[in-house]
């Protein structure tokens, strides 16, 4: 609980600086607010606004934000059992509901109607929970959930953290918008430094292997070098070319099973990295169970 509070405080500060910097950069107030409600993923919001403030097109902003959020897909796999009710139980309930509806339909129209309404109601509630839970998948809620043992505890941690952060994030962005509108020169307060600082703090804990460090370094050089000559937004996407270094070195030799490769590949690939958003606290354990599962395949 205390940890959720600390993370909430950190996110609140980021939210305030995000809202303030976005408005100070000349965007209307509803842009950061709508992003926070509809996207609810700090890094990608900051990235998208950063691209737009640098003069990039909305398309480039959406592309950058979307690439950052691909990690939510493996997160979803990791917390599927706590986001909604259990998959197997779900399917069993569905089958039971179908059977009940069939029987009721065959027996009597009236009873059938009632049963259908009841099962529809239960199904609707389950879907509502699932739809909301899905939106609450973030670095933080996943990290907190995976830290717990047993499904009830994981579930409680996920929902507590997810709801708390959704409220804190949106309130703090709103505060930031008010602050940014009230201040005349936010640059005097150094708010423009908070964007790159946040992104750096998010990325540093993920630089766990040599190959990703080389790729990121190359990408950064590409992006900075191209900034003077390309329209804003494009240098960033060109930075993805840094990933090409993965295949350029010895570590990318094709068709060799992962378990035969050296330590270079030992990464917690895509798995919710504890403290991705709060790397400062994140303890990293890059070469444990993932390596084992890779070897077993």
């Amino acid at each position, binding site marked *: 609980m205390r940890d959720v509070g600390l993370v909430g405080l950190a996110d609140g500060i980021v939210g305030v600086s995000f809202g303030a910097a976005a408005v100070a950069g000349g965007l209307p107030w509803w842009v950061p607010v*709508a992003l926070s409600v509809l996207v609810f993923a700090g890094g990608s919001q900051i990235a998208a606004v950063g691209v737009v403030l640098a003069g990039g097109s909305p398309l480039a902003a959406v592309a950058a934000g979307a690439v950052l959020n691909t990690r939510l897909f493996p997160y979803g796999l990791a917390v599927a059992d706590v986001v909604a009710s259990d998959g197997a139980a779900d399917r069993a309930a569905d089958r039971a509901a179908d059977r009940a509806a069939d029987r009721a339909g065959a027996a009597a129209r009236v009873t059938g109607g009632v049963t259908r309404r009841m099962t529809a109601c239960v199904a609707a509630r389950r879907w509502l929970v699932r739809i909301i839970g899905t939106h609450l998948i973030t670095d933080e809620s996943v990290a907190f959930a995976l830290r717990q043992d047993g499904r009830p505890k994981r579930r409680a941690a996920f929902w507590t953290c997810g709801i708390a952060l959704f409220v804190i994030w949106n309130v703090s962005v709103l505060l930031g918008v008010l602050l940014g509108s009230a201040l005349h020169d936010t640059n005097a307060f150094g708010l423009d430094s908070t964007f*790159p600082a946040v992104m750096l703090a998010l990325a540093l804990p993920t630089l766990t292997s040599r190959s990703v460090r080389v790729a990121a370094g190359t990408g950064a050089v590409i992006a900075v070098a191209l900034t003077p000559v390309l329209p804003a937004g494009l240098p960033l996407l060109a930075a993805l070319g840094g990933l090409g270094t993965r295949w350029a070195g010895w570590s990318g030799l094709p068709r060799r099973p992962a378990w035969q490769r050296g330590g270079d590949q030992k990464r917690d690939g895509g798995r919710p990295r504890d403290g991705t958003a709060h790397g400062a606290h994140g303890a990293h354990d890059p070469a444990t169970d993932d390596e084992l599962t890779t070897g077993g395949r």
Partner: protein
Amino acid sequence: MMPMTAIVALGVLTYAFRFTGPLLRGRVTVPAAAERLFADAATVLLIALAATAALTAGHGFAGWARPAGVLVAGVLAARRAPFPVVVIAAAGVTALLRLAGVP
């Protein structure tokens, strides 16, 4: 400028990434190599964004105050300082340098 359609598009894409995981659970396994590629792509983007946002404004150099603040923040983050400290240090260093007349 960021039109509402772009915000909604990013929201829908983001929701799709969140949704497909629980939907496909137990039916697919993501190849470890693909997971690594996603994770690395996010890292490369974040670092490139941090670099361009720290060093450039428009098509030119941003001045020294901002990269200096970000550098201090980066050192603090690498030393596992708490997140609020990192963010406040970045703004504080940049603000102080500007107060001292550094652009």
